[in-house]
């Protein structure tokens, strides 16, 4: 199956998806199967967490879209109003306060079934959003806890 790259994904321009399999249809052009698309969503979502990127308004909007939650639903899961979440999202490049960032990371892990061991919960204060975050497509489950070496 041929593979292609995508630059930008659901509003996050820095995500560069690589090796995404697609089918070529004479009638409909390039097609991506739903299962591939769903895996891409999980890969990109986990990559942001695993790379230790700061959670800004843009990332909140992205995750809320992926999770399919309204402002009110998202807010109530964190103990905030819909207006508070809207304010976060409108300040697109403003990083969340540390405690909120951690809460959002835990929430995403819970809702998407990522292990809390598979990404850092706290991100350094000086972390910056990248120009490019490469995400390589793979079929394996995403966000599982890393294997621990067993004692001999």
């Amino acid at each position: 199956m041929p593979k292609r790259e995508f630059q930008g994904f659901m509003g996050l321009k820095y995500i560069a998806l690589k090796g995404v399999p697609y089918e070529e249809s004479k009638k409909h052009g390039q097609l991506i199967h739903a299962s591939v698309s769903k895996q891409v969503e999980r890969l990109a979502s986990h990559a942001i967490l695993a790379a230790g990127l700061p959670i800004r308004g843009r990332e909140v909007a992205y995750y809320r879209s992926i999770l399919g939650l309204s402002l009110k639903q998202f807010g109530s899961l964190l103990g905030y109003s819909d207006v508070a979440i809207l304010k976060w999202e409108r300040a697109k490049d403003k990083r969340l306060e540390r405690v909120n960032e951690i809460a959002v990371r835990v929430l995403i892990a819970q809702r998407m079934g990522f292990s809390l061991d598979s990404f850092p919960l706290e991100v350094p204060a000086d972390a910056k959003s990248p120009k490019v975050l490469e995400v390589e497509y793979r079929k394996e489950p995403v966000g599982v806890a890393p294997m621990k070496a067993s004692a001999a």
Partner: protein
Amino acid sequence: MNRITEARQIIEAVKAGNFSLRVHARLRSAERALPVEEIQSIAATAVEWLWQDDRQTHKFLGYRRNGRGGGFTAVLDGGAVIVTVFKRSLNRWER
């Protein structure tokens, strides 16, 4: 196969995850892109269907997971092929 039968097949295929997205539908901007589960939610809660003769596609309106409206257009080609996706409010008579 008549259009109603096609529409039913598309709905069942989308609900079962047996569909493909045209790259254009996948790449729509943040404001208009829909994750796969949203498309499946719209199919599962479809309140309106129409056949668009000019575009030769089926159009479906339904509910997204957060209770707001959304839609997609699709054609049948083996499994369903989603041509495009969109968000929109559902009018009172559509709910």
